[in-house]
């Protein structure tokens, strides 16, 4: 069983709208061994991957795939399902898969949804090994394979905060492009784009971020504007720390000035010894050390997005009750870590308590006179973490005055998205009356605690971030014009780009004779491909994109955009063959070109050649309007009432609601292929370029 070729289809393709991996699989002799003929195969496979039972396949209900397995199916199809299942088990959601035979016996095209090319490639390899092991009755470590993939998913896929924003954007029809292997993502296209990087946006000010990192400065600014903060100061020695503590009044908090995640922070210190020990702990973090008033209450995280409070979470202290015979570390396992919400990694709202690695917990134990090995007397309550994970949703409870205060705090620092850490006994009461205070403002706050709270409702923070970047009706899209067909695409692309430029747009053009920005050639190489299309859409100046796609591009890479405003198919004749892709007939070519029409937006337009019956037949696949163009002046009868561009007596006629307007007389069009001009006129008309401007543009071109 051999992978002849793996094609990463990075955009909409002949199979689906989403990126997939297309594998050309040669199963060789196994063509004669469907699954029902392999003894023990079904049992081994279902034992290793019991969740395959969920795959609906074919009959459209649970167990569908298992039925096919029992009845007999071929390795390509099985490989598809195993790959999908491995991806799902590894935490990379994938539903779509398809397997088709080709004209060559034993050679299949297996297609699986791929959110990350590297992970899917690995999953395919693991799936192949797993399937062969099951066929040949060899052992296979499923858990280890899943773990390997899981690790890849964690390191290669978007982090949960970024993913939730991207998902929210997708939900609103806003396209996205990942710009780096990290979490830098572009939402929207061209000039309408915004960028995000975890929970930072391109509106996040670098200066504000710097201010938020300088706790002392943030506190000064907040205090000046009347926001309650714990008063305190920077100290330079243990002795100085104690002096500051006496000035401020006990109890105090000692912490590093630019630490994070609570490292080196000690709270409610009452004695000189405690303060001095805490100083050393904080000092080890490497930055300056701050001593400040201890604010009584729970730690809260309030998330401000675009000036508004979007979510709030509370931290709770973690303690246990001794039984008089177990050690503290044993009790931690029995009473705390046993909680099913606790675990490693981002899948769990609460993390495990690991005493030997948790300096703060050790410090807390020490204050109570214990170590991890102590056995406290029965019934004694032992505090383990003063503030455990801040993961209990309290969004609904926040007092409006508290919300106003944290919103002001974010404004003072200058952050569009801020995680405000606040200590208060009761978040449903104003801060003033309880001595609550804001202790820290964070740029790029984690969103996980609001997405997966340990209790309470998850908050739609991704939606809020997207809403702060894109107004309600803004999908972040620029007009994208996709051009497909067998010939005449490049001159059409140039002509259309020129018309759009005349309409005042900064045009990005990717076609087979190069990549152009505002008429300037940026690349001389063939740019009718996925990479060039992405470049156009990534360019922050581009206000309209004209993108040429060859049949080979659609087959080997997929389209460079998810949806388009205008999709043009020029023609299929004269026939071309793509035997290398097992595409041999005009109908098959048409099916490839259909991809271009499938992605036309609901408010978009397909521009189709009425004179090519196969092309004209694509009209039915378009979600939006169809404008036909016709060099012989005829239209499909069903289309009489709609828009069309016709060549009549050598002149160009715009037809709408059975009204015809002559745009251009015979003379001016002579030097052009009539199809090219008609298609360009139709597309420009579809984009709202006025007939007068189209006419002027054609004359000037």
């Amino acid at each position, binding site marked *: 069983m051999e992978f002849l070729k793996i094609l990463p289809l990075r955009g909409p393709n002949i199979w689906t709208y989403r990126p997939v991996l297309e594998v050309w699989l040669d199963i060789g002799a196994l063509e004669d061994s469907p699954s029902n003929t392999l003894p023990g195969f079904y049992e081994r496979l279902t034992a290793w991957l019991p969740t395959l039972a969920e795959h609906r396949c074919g009959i459209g209900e649970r167990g569908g795939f298992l039925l096919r397995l029992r009845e007999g199916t071929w390795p390509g199809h099985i490989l598809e399902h195993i790959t999908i299942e491995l991806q799902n088990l590894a935490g990379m959601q994938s539903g779509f898969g398809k397997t088709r035979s080709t004209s060559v016996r034993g050679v299949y095209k297996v297609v699986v949804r791929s959110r990350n090319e590297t992970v899917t490639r690995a999953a395919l390899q693991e799936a192949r090994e797993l399937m062969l092991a099951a066929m040949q009755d060899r052992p296979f470590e499923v858990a280890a394979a899943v773990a390997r993939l899981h690790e890849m998913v964690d390191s290669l896929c978007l982090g949960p905060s970024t993913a939730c924003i991207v998902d929210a954007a997708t939900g609103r029809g806003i396209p996205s492009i990942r*710009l780096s292997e990290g979490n830098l993502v572009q939402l929207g296209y061209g000039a309408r784009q915004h960028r995000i*990087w975890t929970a930072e946006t391109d*509106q996040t000010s670098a200066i*504000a971020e710097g201010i938020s990192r300088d706790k002392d400065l943030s506190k000064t600014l907040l205090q000046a504007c009347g926001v309650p903060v714990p008063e305190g100061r920077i100290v330079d020695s243990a002795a100085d720390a104690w002096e500051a503590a006496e000035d401020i009044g006990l109890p105090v908090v000692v912490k590093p000035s630019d630490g994070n995640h609570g490292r080196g922070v000690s709270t409610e210190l009452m004695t000189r010894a405690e303060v001095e020990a805490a100083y050393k702990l904080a000092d080890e973090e490497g930055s300056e050390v701050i001593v400040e008033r201890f604010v009584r209450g729970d730690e809260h995280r309030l998330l401000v997005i675009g000036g508004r409070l979007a979510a709030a979470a509370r931290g709770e202290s973690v303690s246990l009750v001794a039984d008089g015979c177990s050690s503290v570390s044993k009790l931690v396992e029995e009473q705390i870590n046993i909680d099913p919400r606790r675990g490693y990694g981002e899948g769990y709202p609460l993390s495990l308590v690991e005493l030997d690695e948790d300096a703060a917990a050790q410090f807390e134990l020490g204050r109570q006179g214990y170590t991890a090995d102590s056995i406290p007397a029965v019934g004694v309550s032992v505090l383990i973490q003063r503030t455990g994970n801040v993961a209990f949703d309290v969004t609904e409870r926040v007092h409006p005055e508290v919300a106003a205060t944290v919103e*002001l705090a974010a404004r003072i620092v200058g952050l569009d998205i801020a995680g405000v850490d606040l200590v208060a006994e009761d978040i449903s009461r104003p801060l003033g009356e309880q001595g609550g205070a804001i202790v820290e403002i964070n740029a790029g706050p984690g969103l996980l605690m609001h997405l997966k709270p340990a209790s309470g409702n998850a908050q739609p923070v991704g939606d809020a971030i997207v809403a702060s970047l894109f107004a309600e009706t803004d999908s972040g899209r620029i007009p994208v014009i996709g051009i497909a067909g067998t010939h005449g695409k490049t001159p059409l692309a140039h002509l259309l780009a020129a018309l759009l430029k005349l309409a005042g747009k900064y045009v990005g053009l990717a076609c087979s004779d190069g990549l152009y920005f505002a008429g300037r050639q940026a690349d001389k190489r063939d740019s009718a491909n996925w990479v060039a299309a992405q470049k156009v859409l990534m360019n922050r100046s581009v206000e309209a994109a004209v993108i040429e796609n060859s049949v080979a591009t659609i087959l080997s890479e997929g389209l460079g955009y998810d949806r388009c405003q205008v999709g043009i198919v020029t023609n299929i004749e004269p026939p071309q063959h793509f035997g290398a892709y097992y595409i041999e007939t005009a109908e098959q070519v048409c099916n490839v070109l259909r991809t271009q029409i499938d992605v036309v937006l609901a408010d978009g337009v397909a521009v189709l050649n009425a004179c090519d019956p196969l092309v004209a037949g694509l009209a039915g696949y378009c979600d939006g309007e169809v404008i036909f163009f016709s060099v012989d002046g005829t239209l499909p009868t069903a289309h009489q009432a709609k828009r069309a561009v016709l060549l009549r007596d050598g002149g160009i006629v715009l037809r709408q609601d059975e009204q015809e307007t002559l745009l251009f007389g015979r003379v001016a069009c002579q030097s052009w292929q009539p199809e090219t001009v008609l298609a360009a006129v139709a597309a420009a008309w579809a984009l709202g370029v006025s007939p007068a401007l189209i006419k002027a543009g054609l004359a000037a071109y």
Partner: protein
Amino acid sequence: MEVSRLRALRGPNLWSQHTAIEAIVSCSAAEQDIAKISGFEARLRARFPAMGLLQPPGYASAVSMAHTLGVAALGLQAQADCPVTFNRTTATSESGVYQVVIEYSEEAVGRLAFKLARALCVAAVEDTAFDVADALAQLRELDEEVRLGPSTGAIVQAAVQRGIPYCRLTTGSLVQFGWGSRQRRIQAAETDRSSAIGEAIAQDKELTKRLLEAAGVSVPVGRPVADVADAWAAMCEIAAAVVVKPLDGNQGKGVTVNVVTREHLEIAYAAAIEFGSQVLVERFMPGSDFRMLVVGDKLVAAARREPPQVIGDGVRSVRELVEQVNADPRRGDGHATSLTRMRLDSIALARLQAQGYTADSIPVKGCHVVLRNNANLSTGGTATDVTDDVHPDLAASAVAAAQMVGLDVCGVDVVCDTVLLPLAEQGGGVVEVNAAPGLRMHLQPSYGKGREVGEAIVSMMFAGKDDGRIPLVAVAGTNGKTTTVRLIAHLLGCRGLHVGMTNSDGVYIQGKRIDSGDCSGPKSARNVLLHPDVDAAVFETARGGVLREGLAFDRCNVAVVTNLGRGDHLGLNYISTVEDLSVVKRVVVQNVRPDGVAVLNAADPMSAAMADACPGSVTFFAQDRHHPVLAAHCAQGRRAVYVEDGHIVASKKKIVQRIPLSQIPLTRNGTIGFQIENAMAAIAAAWALKVDWKTLRGGLASFVNDAETAPGRFNFFDYRGAAVIADYGHNPDAMLALIPAIESIPAHKRLVVISGAGDRRDEDIRQQTEMLGEVFDEVILYQDQCQRGRQDGEVLALLRQGLAKAGRANKIDEITGEFLAIDTALSRLQAGDLCLILIDQVDEALAHIAQRLTEANDTRATP
């Protein structure tokens, strides 16, 4: 010579608009005329030859040591290149005591200069040594350390030119421009709109390159490498000379260019990995290094940068050649000069070795010997301005690069042969983009024209004539400030502005108190100007803050001086007459914008006299429309506010508006004279700020003045049918204003409860009871909680003295404790009586009165 007090005046002040050190210096008899100290001036000048003249030629009056100190402190700063010119020494009312005022551009430098000047004077008196070179070096070093760096400094300077106010938020380069809701921030050459993501992208050279390539900007191909072997592989892929550099490095550290052999690659790799986690190998682009500065969507400056190098003469060694170059006076050690000295450090020696030299080699004549790879000014490189040569296509590439990365201020590093051609035509490319680029090479290039890049950044941040200011009203005067401030703030609030207000009760933002206590000083005002929500600011500007620190702002739109009367707090801080006081209160008027307005009380001679000091126009107010000052002003067709037929009238040439007093509840139907004056002042201020009259009338009608909103400002209560008025008045003018208001309220018996604030002059304390004794039947004197420096019973004695001549008062009691005094007064009241309580601890006393009122109402409710 004794220095008893040193203050930093951080804003416009009594003396000038400059920031200055103010010292109180006492001189002995001898020191009051230095001519009497034999040889002193000669010794002084021997030690500090650049010392300025002590008095104009031809004058021979006595020059004091204090005066000498001032001239020396200014001279030292000036010699250390600080831009300062102002100093002034004046004798105080105390013999031998002087106020010495010396301008500074940096407070720390000013303080040090003062200290050094003192040491200089002492050395000249005692004929001991004084190392003036060392003193100047200390000042220069401190100045360079504390003042803004060249990039930030240039932007700030450009902002100042545009009239945009600024303040430093840290000792570093973080600066706020503008005020309140109009504020913007910069940090070095970075604005508050410089995106954190853009900055992060610029840090990641690989990502930057990918994005630039996508934008069609020419970049050197290449990739990050895993190790030396991979570096070699990458070099083979590129198949040309390469550059080896750290992936996330800066300032050109660890960069090796034009690497062509495997041996050189290995050395270069080792050098690069020291400064970054990963190493980048990319195609070496021959040509010169250029830095393009993009601001917004424009290229504003371009410079060719050359690494530090010497040219052989066939005679001298590299070391000698470097020394020769460094002898150029334009080369200094820091950022202050246009060039920095070259260093023959280990990096330079290594670079020499790579070229086959040591420091002692003698290069042949005409041979260029490069000392390091990067062209930074700070390591001895040079910059030549080429802004005017840049080809439009090349400029467009630089702008495209900046926009693709997403930086509003961006340094684009380009390597190409010439900027006269587009990049594509010469195989050049963008090698790096930098956030917060250094501006020095464009401001003060080593060769060629300096460019106004600070101005470009400021213009991007503040469009057109925007100066980042919000309307600012400063209110000074002896009495009525707080009510006037509150009313102006209320009127501006009615116009829909978010108003920040400071007064002696606290700091208020949109009516919400964010700080309490006496907040009429510059610190509170600065906090308001810092607040991101504030659209307009109204500041009570008390004398204390003006004396202590100067104003919190450079200029105001409106300055109001309610009145000076006979003054208050006289005798403190060398302010002993009301004329002295008027100089202090006048500071706000002197700092009105040229298009601003001073609102002055025509009926108060001191206030009226300030008109001449106002750079803007003047609106006079007075109840009497026939008051000569006001009448003359009206006759000239200028703005005036006065009372006529039960209306407040605003007039300019003809009557503009008439507002019935009956519709201004603050005036209690026109019965409280001082509130009419406060209302007039506020109307004039709102008029100056173009508040429309409809809003203004509505605001006057809706303004509430009770114990809740204006504690201690003529708070009126009904206690068992008797009128009780609580007020914080505590000076003769306050009494003068209160008495007619009280007299206008009919009553059987009149009581007053009063203490005296110990920090007033004896005569002022006496005067208060003198006046009250004429109109009240019973007086209850109580001893203040805080005696403010007085002996026990001293204030009471003074108050009693004032009552000695009283015509009306027939019953006088002395009580210890404010609450007891209040209770005593209340217990004596019958329906129809009137009681004025001059409260001291405002909040506590009002709470106490409120408590008694509740009790009274409760007993009434339960028969």
